[in-house]
């Protein structure tokens, strides 16, 4: 029986394993050096904050794997012998494979800062990182101040985590406004304000220069590049993005760039070896997407796709319309289609922005300057219906249509305040239009007539 070996039991590897099992009775082995069972990395923060126990982050009960005949192996792969189809395992015997899927995910970026490997300095990615965090920042007595370096999604999660235990947090952000490489200005500004509301010491346009040793190999303070200020701290969180976790492939013949290079079938340069999830790098970027996509959903989709290919049904990876979501402290964020920040905004993209006068709620719509085709939406503090935006993007609706039918797309819980009229009024005044906000229609939403 063909033996499929998957390195990495994250969402990508697990999706692949589950779908291969659905489609076939191949032998499947899932290897990971991190934890015995699959858990949701995105939920690590809730464990530290006490919302959940670690076991709650595991989407499947422990009996699931045996019942579905998926072998689990807790081991670290040190090398891939492509010629002989063998994996070298640290301190253990080799594992041979017929088909190999590399799904090893990412690791936190470290940009060669002095002191970056001291104790109390770490990223937030793995279960081990969580354990270390409990060691170095268990409470505000042990950790009198924490510094977070890098203003992205993981940075703000880490800030929220530490604040839940009342630990003072200084947040160093290289950009002039939070995450404004991705978010348009209005939104980024609103998040800045919200970060301050949570008593986080936000330092914009500020870079880390060095991390200082206390003499015992542990962090004592950090130096700030711009001002030279020395900031005493007991913990430094490095959250300036992630890179594919593929060091163990250095000696193999598999072609790598930033990640493992794959074609649209998710095949690597070597026969019978595939790569999926955070660690895969598309040779040809797809649409506006980046060649390496480090998000949950794409890992899942690639896993589903590669399962088809491996089970004799070669299938290209063709993700649909882009979407994503996150939460900035108390503010939920969703995005559908493409809305660009200042940096990298295509010249054809025009935007419409609305913000509530006193609540932390705002949206930005992007559309094509000439054709007025709707391109995408960012929402903060309003939930939107994925299905509707997916449909509107597929049907290339124009921005007027989208705005006047916005009520159909609202996904907030029942009885929530509605903002559509106010949004449309602002649009009318910005663009000298005379749109009316149409009432929500169950018929349109569920498409039955």
């Amino acid at each position, binding site marked *: 029986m063909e033996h499929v070996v998957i390195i990495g039991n994250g969402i990508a590897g697990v999706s692949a394993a589950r*779908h291969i099992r659905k489609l076939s009775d191949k032998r499947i082995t899932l290897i990971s050096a991190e934890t015995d069972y699959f858990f*949701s990395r*995105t*939920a690590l923060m*809730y464990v530290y*904050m*006490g*919302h*959940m*126990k670690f076991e*709650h*982050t*595991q*989407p499947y*009960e422990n009996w699931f794997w045996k019942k579905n005949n998926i072998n689990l192996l807790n081991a670290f792969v040190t090398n891939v012998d492509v010629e002989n189809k063998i994996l070298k395992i640290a301190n253990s015997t080799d594992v041979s494979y017929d088909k190999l899927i590399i799904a090893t995910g990412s690791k936190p970026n470290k940009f060669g800062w002095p002191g970056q490997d001291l104790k109390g300095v770490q990223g937030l990615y793995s279960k081990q990182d969580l354990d270390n965090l*409990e*060691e170095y920042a*268990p409470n*505000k007595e042990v950790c009198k101040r924490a510094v977070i370096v890098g203003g992205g999604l993981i940075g703000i999660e880490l800030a929220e985590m530490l604040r*839940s*235990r*009342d630990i003072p947090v200084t947040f160093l952000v290289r950009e002039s406004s939070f995450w404004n490489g991705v978010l348009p200005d209005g939104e980024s500004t609103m998040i800045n304000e919200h970060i301050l*509301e*949570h008593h986080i010491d936000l330092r914009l346009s500020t870079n880390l220069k060095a991390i200082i040793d206390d003499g015992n190999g542990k962090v004592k303070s950090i130096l700030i590049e711009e001002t030279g200020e020395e900031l005493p701290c007991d913990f430094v969180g490095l959250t300036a993005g992630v890179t594919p976790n593929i060091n163990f492939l250095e000696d193999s013949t598999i072609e790598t760039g930033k990640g493992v290079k794959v074609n649209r079938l998710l095949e690597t340069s070597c026969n019978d070896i595939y790569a999926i999830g955070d660690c895969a790098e598309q040779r040809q970027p797809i649409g506006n997407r980046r060649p390496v996509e480090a998000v*949950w*959903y794409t890992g*899942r*989709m690639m896993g*589903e*796709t590669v399962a*088809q290919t491996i089970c004799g049904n070669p*299938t290209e*990876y*063709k*993700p*649909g*319309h*882009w*979407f994503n979501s*996150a*939460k900035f*402290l*108390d503010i*939920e964020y*969703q995005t559908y289609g493409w809305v660009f920040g200042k940096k990298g905004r295509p010249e054809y993209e025009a935007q419409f922005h609305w913000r509530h006068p006193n609540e932390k709620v705002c949206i930005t719509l992007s559309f094509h300057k000439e054709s007025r085709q709707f391109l995408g939406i960012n929402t903060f503090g309003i*939930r*939107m*219906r*994925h*299905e509707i935006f*997916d449909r509107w993007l597929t049907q290339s609706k124009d921005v007027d249509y989208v705005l006047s039918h916005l009520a159909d797309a609202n*996904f*907030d*819980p*029942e*009885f*929530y*305040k509605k903002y559509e009229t106010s949004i449309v009024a602002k649009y009318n005044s910005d663009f000298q239009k005379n749109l009316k906000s149409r009432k929500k229609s169950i018929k349109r939403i*569920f498409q*039955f007539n």
Partner: protein
Amino acid sequence: MSNYDRSMALTGQPPVSLSTNQKLATLVGMFGLAVLLLAAFNINFPNKTLWLTIALSSIFSGTIWFAWDAYLDKAPGIKNDGVWFKSISSRGLWGWVAGIALTGFYIVLYFFPEYLGLVKDGDNKGVIALFDPLSKALSGNPASQWFVYGTLYTVAILAFGIKFLWKYRHNKYERIRTMSVMFFQTAFAFIIPELMARLNGSSVLNGGSLPYYDLKNIWPLNYYNFEGYRIKSFVSSGDIGLALLLFGIASIFIITPILTYRFGKRWYCSWVCGCGGLAETVGDPFRQLSDKSQFAWKVERWVVHSVVVFVTLMTTAVIYSYLGNDTSKYWLTKPSFLIGVATLLTAVFVWAMVFKRNQLQKDAKYGAVGYFVIIMSLVAFHFLSGEGQVFLFKSETLRKTYSFLIGSIFSGVIGTGFYPIFGNRVWCRFGCPMAAILGFQQRLFSKFRITTNGGQCISCGNCSTYCEMGIDVRAYAQKGENIVRSSCVGCGICSAVCPRGVLKLENGPLEGRIDSNQVLLGNDVDLMKLVNQK
């Protein structure tokens, strides 16, 4: 393992530690409880009205002071920091202490009310006597253990209801729902029945007297509603009595199905019901303790449906036992009643099997077994019953057993006493026959569902963790499937705690409601066609 301070001291590190305000608030609340406890130990308080007011207001204000300090200086949003670190909410020592204390209280309440000071003939003593003035002011009668319990129950729902309103002040669904349960508890369960008692013996009731009737308490939750003595009182109380009796019947056969069809069973379980009201307010800190395993789900289905079978048989037996055989005396006779019950059950059974077969899948088998058991028992009733005797037991024995096992032990002692151990909806999930019947309808014939927002789920598990009914919400959400589960009480917390806006409780068309082949959006459409091929 983490070395976060998990000591049981309430004064640990944030987010577990108590502020000065909270310590004082705890003291105030404890003082109120202490007064009641002292009264229970027969300390005679001179001015009962005054001391009762002091006790209840201390409990009430202590609770809301505590909550005020916990939530009001924080930004609105999800407030679950430290839930699994706090001993009370994570089955720690305080959780067990609270569980044992509550359980003890229920045992005394149900089985040894004399320890609370109940005196059958003569003046009450102890804590019950403390409540006499209030009871007399409302209904004109001295208090009973049930009046004491009802008052404390209402105070608890109101105080913890306010806490809940503050905790979820960003969420209007939660707020409106909570105001609703607070209203129904205070008006329908507490005040109206007491006031109704004032009518007893009056000419409006033709001199009859009505049984205690909480109008929102519907059979089979209110399993005794159709017992002989109640029917007699209803019938003897003029038009009002008859109207109430008809209302009781209409509640379960007409009103309930219509509302459940339109809104799902949440209209009752988390908007109206008193058990639900307590679970959602006082029980809110314990919702994460429910068991999410598939094994628990299996147990749930067996146990709760057995209770439905039990209550149906018990009620049938009780009614059967007081009906006659002679049509000239009363239109409803023993045989015609049995035939009526059998016909109704058969109609429901056939409808489900014919029209909803594909949605029932494996459960159909169990449904058939349950149906078969009931019908055979009905036949047995007919052939094996003698005077006052149904089947082999006295109907009275059946009734008493139900009342003891289900009415007292399950819904009270285990259902509420064990909040801090098994979570706040143990009764609603495993025991409540009303919930099971509403659930059956919710699953098969209702517009309600929890819509999953396309492909947005990140499998974090917040929804499953905080589902008080132990539904593994994530298992559906991460596949892009809607959640249509008979046990869902529509509390809306899964939707509230979801950090990605994945879940929405809504009423929509029946068509496409349960869509297990939901396309995971964002994916390639052709791929999803393949994935969904069975």
